[in-house]
């Protein structure tokens, strides 16, 4: 028997893995990948709620489409920033990039 709780548990574990990656990665591209994992976890939640709580109303799936769109925009701008950082710093390890600190 696989119900709503199973999907929510799956997405919680996926979200936590994404948070762990975003906290511990040094590479800026690795951090962006972890953020994409978190977006996917949220989308699983939306679709699972849409299926199990409002099956005749597709609002959850529409929200998931908007999340995917914003994730695409975020990846585009994020990778452009990463390339700019690489050009200026000759590296994309975020612990070397601290010119905005102090």
């Amino acid at each position: 028997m696989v119900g709503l709780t199973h999907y929510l548990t799956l997405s919680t574990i996926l979200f936590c893995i994404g948070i762990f990656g975003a906290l511990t990665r040094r590479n800026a591209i690795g951090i962006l990948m972890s953020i994409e994992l978190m977006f996917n976890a949220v989308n699983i939640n939306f679709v699972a709620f849409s299926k199990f709580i409002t099956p005749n109303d597709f609002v959850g799936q529409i929200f998931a489409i908007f999340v995917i769109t914003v994730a695409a925009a975020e990846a585009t701008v994020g990778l452009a920033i990463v390339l700019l950082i690489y050009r200026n710093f000759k590296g994309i390890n975020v612990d070397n990039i601290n010119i905005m600190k102090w």
Partner: protein
Amino acid sequence: MLTGIPAAIFYILTGIILGSAVMVVSSKNIFHCALFLVLCFFGVAGIYILLSAEFLAAVQVLIYVGAITILMIFAIMLTAKLYSAKIRQSNEQVLPGIIIVAALLVATIFTLSRTAWKLSYETAQVQSTVGIGKLLLTKYVLPFEVVSVVLLTALIGAIIIARKE
């Protein structure tokens, strides 16, 4: 509720998703991370099919696997010599990170297993693609247009940020 073979497929997909997600955040080679990310996105597309959201599964494969991951691989290739296995890929926050994440995981799973969800046992009257298409062009037409402006803005912004002076 799924039983029998669909439930087995759910557990297989869960194994694929979580295993490849762990590899994404822990692999030393950033290029392997991108490849495991593709596997993870395919698993999530399978979960969407199990949840009878076929349109979202197709969108997932097209946008995440086809566009975002390819963009990531482009960025990895352009920032060369940074993904060799010799460079340390994680910072000093691994132990605090594990503690925080474990606390969050336990709290969230405890809460969601104790919540009484108002489940609905109806089956959908129309297919999800039909329903999404109708809603996107009637009730949600304004957010639909706004999100296309967001995409255009991101496109222009990325070009302006990444170009050489």
